[in-house]
């Protein structure tokens, strides 16, 4: 019990420090960005906006003040749980994020589970039958996907399945012209299908390759050779000996990939016109919307950090040795 409390305490302190560091760093980066939010906002209508009006817009957004003052105001509000108001959406940052997070969440959760399960399975298979035709096939696939950009896969899938075959919808989170509550769960899944497949296809590569390496290592270990000497079949060795040893690095990798998943979702959402957090991030960046961009950065920091902490926690469940180490150090 004490270990768990200590674990949580350490993690929380680290998270607080991390958030502070990320906040400062991203603020410095964003305030040095050359994008002028007022120009980005006005677009071609810029000629009809006098210098006086520019000042009024800058005042509304608070971008007329020096960066340090802006940071302190923002940080002060943040401590009280107020993320500020998004300039381009003209509504509280948390509202903007929460609306979009749910849409993105399902996309990321599904893609993450698929790529994790499939990647692990493929990696085990490839590793167990090292050098076989199936191993080569899996390896070629993994290498290809590891070097393919997400948006490209997305566009290819879109062209094939939505345009030529018309099996999947071309855009959006539910059918065009329908409201969210009119759409059935099947329709929503149907619209999720292609973005999820895109993200999964790419996500599989890394976990497959790592799992494969670890499986090969395990298959050549003393205990595996011993088991084989006792007459265990390859499948038996994989299921009874290798899996537990391979699982640990796979869990680490899968949870560490949450950050990449976030990045991948940004691209996939762009391609499929899927209105999630990824699109909001792009818009915030292009529009120079500092509060929103920082809000998203912070939320995703917490998200990735939580993922990694869960991985740390799962170690202790999966591997008895980790529990001992944690216990003896206390």
């Amino acid at each position, binding site marked *: 019990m004490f270990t768990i409390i200590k674990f949580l305490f350490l993690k929380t302190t680290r998270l607080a420090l991390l958030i502070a560091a990320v906040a400062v760093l991203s603020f410095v980066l964003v305030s040095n960005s*050359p*994008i*002028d939010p007022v*120009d980005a*906002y*006005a*677009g*071609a*209508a*810029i*000629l*009809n*906006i*006098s*210098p*006086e*009006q520019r000042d*009024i*817009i800058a*005042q*509304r*957004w608070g971008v007329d003040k020096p960066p340090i003052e802006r940071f302190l105001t923002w940080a002060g509000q943040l401590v009280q749980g107020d993320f500020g108001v998004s300039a*381009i*959406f*003209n*509504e509280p940052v948390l509202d903007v994020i929460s*609306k*979009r997070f749910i849409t993105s969440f399902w996309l990321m959760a599904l893609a993450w589970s698929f790529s994790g399960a499939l990647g692990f399975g493929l990696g085990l298979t490839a590793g167990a039958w090292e050098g076989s035709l199936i191993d080569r096939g899996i390896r070629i696939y993994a290498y290809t996907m590891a070097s393919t950009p997400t948006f490209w896969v997305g*566009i290819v899938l*879109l*062209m094939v399945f*939505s*345009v030529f075959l*018309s099996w999947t919808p*071309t*855009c*959006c*989170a539910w059918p*065009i*012209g329908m*409201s*969210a509550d009119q759409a059935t769960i099947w329709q929503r899944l149907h619209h999720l299908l292609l973005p999820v497949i895109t993200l999964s296809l790419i996500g599989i590569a890394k976990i497959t390759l790592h799992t494969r390496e670890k499986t090969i290592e395990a298959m050549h270990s003393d205990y595996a050779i011993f088991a084989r000497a006792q007459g265990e079949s390859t499948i038996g060795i994989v299921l009874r000996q290798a899996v537990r040893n391979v699982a640990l690095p796979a869990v680490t990798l899968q949870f560490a990939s949450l950050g990449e998943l976030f990045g991948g979702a940004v691209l996939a959402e*762009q*391609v*499929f*016109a899927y*209105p*999630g957090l990824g*699109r*909001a991030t792009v*818009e915030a960046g292009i*529009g120079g919307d500092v509060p929103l961009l920082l809000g998203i950065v912070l939320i995703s920091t917490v998200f990735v950090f939580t993922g990694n902490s869960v991985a740390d926690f799962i170690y202790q469940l999966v591997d008895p040795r980790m529990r001992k180490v944690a216990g003896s150090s206390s």
Partner: protein
Amino acid sequence: MKRIYLFLGVMIPCLLLLATGCDRSEKKAAYQKPKTLTLAVGGEKAEGFDPTLGWGSYGSPLFFSTLLKRDADLNIVPDLATAWKLVDNQLTWIITIRRAVVFSDGSPLSAADVAYTFNTAAAAGGMLDLSNLQRAEAVSDTKVVLRLKQPDITFIQYLITLGIVPARQHDSGFGRHPVGSGPYKLVRWDEGQQMIVAANERYYGGQPFFKRLVFLFAAEDTALAAARAGQIDVLAVSSVMAAQKIPGMKLHVVKSVDNRGLMFPILPNTGKRTPRGLPIGNDVTADIAIRKAVNYAVDRKALVTGVLDGYGRPAFGVADNLPWDNPQIRFKDGDPERAVKILEKAGWVDSNGDGIREKDGKEAEFTILYNVRDRLRQGLAIAVSDMLKPVGIKAVPRGENWDRIKKETHANVVVYGFGGHTPLEMYSLYHSPGPEPMYRNAGFYSNPVVDSYLDQARKAASFAESIPMWKKAQWDGKTGFSVPGDAAWAWLVNLDHTYFINQRLNVGKSQMEPHGHGWPITANIDQWKWN
């Protein structure tokens, strides 16, 4: 798919009705087509649909109505206003509005709402610049008075574009739940995805034919894929995409003043900088001979064919074919001989035989900056550079992002694009600039005669009376900012805006569209119908 449902939806009740002996509705049903349209023309405003922040200034304000509006030929015609006059040395607008107009929620629209809208927009810090408004006041239920700080006829643009909001419902969340007195009302808005609107049955201007509109907000590729799948009735596409065929759709091409042109720095480089430290001046383009030679040497028709795939027309001024355009500024272009003559007369000769002319030891060379993400502007910059080579001018195209261009704009030639339905743009581009002009007259062009015409135009007693002044600023027979005069810019092309529309759809006569391809086509959406 939709059609099958429709077919079944019509046939099954008909059969049932026939069985019960009712044939009247059968006839009616046979002619019925869906009154729903799906459009992918952009137009989503992330901050919401709040006119006081600038929504609706192009195209249809949809949920709102305005005091005045422009018809298909861009004439100013009444909408909410029944009478309007400018009095008190052009400082006061007195506007009478229609009686018995109600918002879509049933509450009455009075002069107080008009006054509220103008006062709020002036202070809101949005895209509308009403800093010239002193105060708006409602003097009765149907009469509103707008007092200005300075006489300015271009203020009429806000009477044309500012949608009237209900004072009572207008709060910080209004943009997400707009309520207005326009032809449509918002049903729902799934941000980043789509917007569904329905006809406002309380609209005073006659019911639109289409009862329900779905606006899809998707990237061009995605929208195109949806159109191919038969899900879209109106689709805005860039002219590069216009050559393809989409089953069931036809190409609809709309002329525009969405122009592209080269801005020349007018001052020589004397090492002067703006207060923010941006360098000013370019010794080559400061010479009027260079500016004129560029204008005459460029073949605008070739640009339209080569760069715009034919979807456009040559541009000679900032407001081609708008009511305040002066037709006398047209000239014969694609004329390298004339360009050469001008250059030689001014002393630009190629003495060292490298193909580039010199004068006083200076090469006739300048950089053309363009937005690197815009393939069209890139194409224009490169094509112009090629056209200038034979006359001995070296123009080097260079792609940059806007923030970089902004820093170099006072010292380099830049490809810009403007084009709005207000002559205020002309004033911003050609009136003597302030110390830190940014995009407003970035070349520091200044001509006291032009200034005086532009000032007189703004002080005119009516919009009609301002038009001759706008025309004279371009060219009065002796001077002006256009090519016969000072040749402050080299305007190149006006784009055509290309749309794919359902073959059966009748969109009537489209307005000459402003800068911004997509939403402007909705300007007359309440008159669209099936053929």
